[in-house]
C-alpha cells in the first residue's frame, strides 16, 4: 500500500491507529480517581507528543541515517516558529500559510547552516551546529528584539494587520484556525466516569505527523536513504570510490531542518506564542535524548522517545509532596514521611533526575533504545519458535 512493503504498511497502520485512538489510550484512568494524575489525554500534551514526534523523526533522518550529530536542531524549530508567528501577525490566523512558510524558512536556514557546518564531520560538526543554535538564541533573545520580541516573545495582538482576515468582532481575540475550525476547540465525550477529549488541533498535528512518518519511511527505503546509510558506515570508502558525499548529507540536513520547521510551525499553530528559549541548547539536547532514548536509526523509536520525555516533563513534574502524602496516607505516620522523603527527590522538580536514570539504564542495557526493549520482549513471547531461541533472547530486559 502507498508504495510500501507489508512490514512498513503494518507499521504505518499501527502508528495511524495509535494516533487516532490516542485520546482513549492516554486516558486509561477514570476521572477523580487517584490514578487520574497519570492521565495524559488532554489536548496540550497530546499535541506536544505528535509535534515533538515530528521533530524527532526529522532529527533521526539526519542522525539515524548519516550519523551526523547535529547539536543545534532547536534553531530550526525556533526559526520555523518565528516565521509562522509572523505569518499569523501579518497575513491570517489560518494555519496553512503559517506552516508552509515555517517549513520553507527553516529549510533555507538549514541550507545556510548545513552548507557551512557540513565542511566538517564528527565532533567539529556538532560544535558548529551548536554554535549556530546558540547564536540564533542570543540574537533572538536580545539583538533582534524588534523582530522576535526578545524575552517576552511574540503573540498575536489585536492591532496586528492580518491583511487576509476580516476585522475581528468586538471583544474577540485572534485564534489560530484552519478555515474557521479553531485549533483550541475540542469535543468531550463522557463514558461512565471516564472523560475523553477530542481536540481539533491534536488531529491536525496528528495528520502532519502521519504524513511526516510516511515520508520518513519512504526516505529510509529509498536509494537516497541507502546512500545516507553508506555515509554513516564508511564515508572514507565512499570518497575513495569517487562519490562526493556532501550533497547527500546537505540534502539530509535540509530535510531534517524542514521537519524541525514544520514542528515549530505546528507549535505556534497549537499555542500561539513563541519565545527564544525554544532555541536554547537544552532544547537541542532534548531532541538528541528523544532519539537515542527511543532508538536512533529506527522509524518508530524517535516518536516513542519524544512521547516518553514529554510525558515525564508534564506528568511527573506536577506530582508534589501533598499528592505523595495522599498516596501513602494508608501507611503509619513515620513510615509515610519516610517513604515520601525517599520518593520526593525523583518527582516534581526532580523529574530530570528520574529521566537521567532511565536514560542511563536504556543506554547501558538497551543500546538500541526503547525499540530494542520492545524487540526483546517480543522475542520472549516467541520463545517456542526454536529458530529465535538464542541465549540472548532469554535475558530479561533490564527495565
Amino acid at each position, binding site marked *: 500500500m502507498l508504495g510500501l512493503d507489508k512490514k512498513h504498511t503494518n507499521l504505518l497502520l499501527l502508528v495511524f491507529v495509535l494516533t487516532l485512538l490516542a485520546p482513549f489510550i492516554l486516558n486509561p484512568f477514570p476521572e477523580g480517581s487517584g490514578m487520574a494524575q497519570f492521565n495524559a489525554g488532554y489536548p496540550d500534551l497530546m499535541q506536544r507528543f505528535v509535534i515533538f514526534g515530528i521533530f524527532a523523526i526529522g532529527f533521526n533522518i539526519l542522525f539515524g541515517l548519516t550519523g551526523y550529530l547535529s547539536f543545534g536542531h532547536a534553531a530550526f524549530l525556533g526559526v520555523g516558529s518565528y516565521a509562522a508567528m509572523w505569518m499569523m501577525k501579518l497575513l491570517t490566523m489560518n494555519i496553512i500559510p503559517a506552516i508552509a512558510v515555517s517549513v520553507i524558512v527553516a529549510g533555507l536556514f538549514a541550507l545556510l547552516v548545513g552548507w557551512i557546518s557540513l565542511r566538517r564531520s564528527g565532533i567539529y560538526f556538532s560544535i558548529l551546529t551548536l554554535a549556530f543554535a546558540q547564536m540564533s538564541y542570543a540574537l533572538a533573545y*536580545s539583538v533582534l528584539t524588534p523582530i522576535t520580541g*526578545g524575552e517576552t*516573545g511574540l503573540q498575536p495582538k*489585536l492591532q496586528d494587520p492580518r491583511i487576509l482576515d476580516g476585522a475581528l468582532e468586538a471583544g474577540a481575540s485572534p485564534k489560530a484556525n484552519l478555515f474557521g475550525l479553531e485549533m483550541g*476547540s475540542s469535543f468531550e465525550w*463522557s463514558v461512565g466516569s471516564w472523560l475523553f477529549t477530542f481536540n481539533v488541533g491534536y488531529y491536525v498535528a496528528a495528520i502532519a505527523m502521519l504524513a511526516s512518518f510516511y515520508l520518513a519511511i519512504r526516505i529510509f527505503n529509498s536509494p537516497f536513504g541507502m546512500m545516507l546509510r553508506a555515509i554513516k558506515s564508511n564515508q572514507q570508502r565512499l570518497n575513495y570510490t569517487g562519490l562526493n558525499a556532501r550533497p547527500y548529507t546537505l540534502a539530509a540536513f535540509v530535510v531534517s531542518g524542514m521537519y524541525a520547521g514544520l514542528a515549530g510551525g505546528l507549535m505556534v499553530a497549537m499555542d500561539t506564542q513563541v519565545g527564544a528559549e525554544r532555541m536554547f541548547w537544552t532544547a537541542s539536547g532534548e531532541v538528541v535524548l528523544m532519539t537515542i532514548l527511543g532508538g536512533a536509526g529506527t522509524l518508530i523509536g524517535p516518536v516513542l522517545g519524544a512521547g516518553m520525555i514529554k510525558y515525564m516533563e508534564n506528568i511527573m513534574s506536577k506530582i508534589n509532596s501533598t499528592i505523595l502524602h495522599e498516596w501513602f496516607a494508608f501507611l503509619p505516620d513515620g513510615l509515610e514521611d519516610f517513604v515520601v522523603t525517599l520518593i520526593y527527590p525523583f518527582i516534581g522538580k526532580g523529574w530530570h533526575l528520574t529521566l537521567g536514570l532511565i536514560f542511563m539504564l536504556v543506554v547501558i542495557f538497551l543500546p538500541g533504545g526503547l525499540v530494542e526493549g520492545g524487540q526483546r520482549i517480543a522475542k520472549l513471547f516467541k520463545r517456542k519458535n526454536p529458530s529465535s531461541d538464542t541465549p540472548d533472547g532469554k535475558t530479561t530486559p533490564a527495565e
Partner: protein
Amino acid sequence: MSKMNLTRRGVLKTGAIAGAGVAAPTIFTAQSAAAFTNEPTGSSVTLGFNVPQSGPYADEGADELRAYELAVEHLNGGGDGGLMNTFSSKALQGNGILGKKVEYVTGDTQTKSDAARASARSMIEKDGAVMITGGSSSGVAVAVQALCQEAGVIFMAGLTHSNDTTGKDKKANGFRHFFNSYMSGAALAPILANNYGTDRRAYHLTADYNWGYTTEEAVRTSTEAMGWETVAAVKTPLTQTDFSSYIAPVLQSGADVLVLNHYGGNMVNSLTNAVQFGLRDKLVNDKNFEIVVPLYSRLMAKGAGANVKGIFGSTNWHWSLQDEGSKQFVQSFGTKYGFPPSQAAHTCYVQALLYADAVERAGSFNPCAVGEALSDFEFDGMGNGPTLYRGEDHQCFKDVLVVKGKENPTSEFDLLEIVEVTPTSQVTYDASIFGGELGACNPGA
C-alpha cells in the same frame, strides 16, 4: 463554528451522576451547562500555582509556593487567618471561596515561556483550574497572561517587574499587584537627587532583555529629569557571570554613578565585581562614586552579602514594615515556616487573597465578573497601604519602598533598611503611555 468547549468538571460531575452504573455511553454536546471555562460545580474549586521550581529563580519560586500554601490554608479557615484579619474588604469568611473548599495544583515554569505555558495549559485542560497565578519573570508572566486570556481564565501575576506586563502586553484577564520599572525610576530619582546631588553623571549596565530595557529607560528618564547626565548605557548578556570587563571602562568614562539594571544572579555578580574593583572608594569629579540597583530583593541582597551595604534600590514590600498588615503577614508566615517572607511571597499571597475576595464580592467565578470586581477596586491592610487596582491597565498603584543595604545587619534576613516610602501619587502614570490594548474579558466557553 459553534464552540464545543465544555468544562471538564461540569461534564465530569454531570457524567458521574447521570452515568452512575449506566454502562451506555452518554454524549454531551455543546452549550449545555458551562457558562465559562472550568466553572466549578462541585464542593471544591481548583487554583493553579505556576512557579519556577527549577532554573535561576527557583529560590523565589519556592518562597512563592510557600505563600500560596499559606493563602490556601487561610482561605479554608485554617491557621490564624493571616491578612484576612487586616484586609479592608471583609467578604472572605474563611470557608473557602463562595463556600467551596480551595484546592490547588502546582507546576514548574522552569523560567521558560514554553514550559510555563505547557504547565498552565495542563492545569486548565487537565486539572480544571479556574485561575492561574505565579511567575517570577516578565517573559513568563506575559506568555502565561496571553494564554489565560485565550483560555478564558483569570491570571494573577506574581513577581514581574517589566512595564510590559500591564503595558504593551496587558490583557483583560490579567492582573498585577507588583510594581514596575517605571515606578522604580520615579521613586528612586528624588532620593538619589537628595543624597547624591543633581549634577551626577550616570553609567548604566543593563541586562540585555526586555526587563533590562524598560528598567534602564525608566531610571534614565527620571534621573535625567532631575538634572543627571547619562554617560553611557552598555548592555550585558543575560548569561554573563563575570562583569570585570564591563566594569573597567566605567572608570575611564568620567561617570560618578553606576546603575546596575540587573536582577537575580546577574546583579549579585555585577555588584560584587564593581565593589571588588574598588569603585565605591573612588573619587570622581570630586564626588564619591556611587552604585544604584533599581530593583532589590532580599534574596539578591543575601547573595551579594556585605557588598550591598549603603546601596540604594527599590522594592515592592519589605518584612520590616510596621503597618498592621505587614506585621500580621510576617507573623503568619514566620509561624509556619520559621523565617520572614520575601517580597515575592508577599505579592503572591496578596494576589491569591485579592482573587478570592473578588470572587466573593462578584458572587461568581466567571472571569468577567471577577475582572469587574477587581477593576478600580480600592483596598487597604495588605501591607502596602491604600492601594488601587486601576481598571485601565489592571495594575496596582500603591506606595513604593526605597531601600538601602543595611550597614549593620542583625540577621541573615535583616539586610535592607527602608529609606523612604514614596507615596502613590508620585509613581502614578497615565495608563496610555506604554501602548497596548486591554481588549475585552474572555470567559472562555
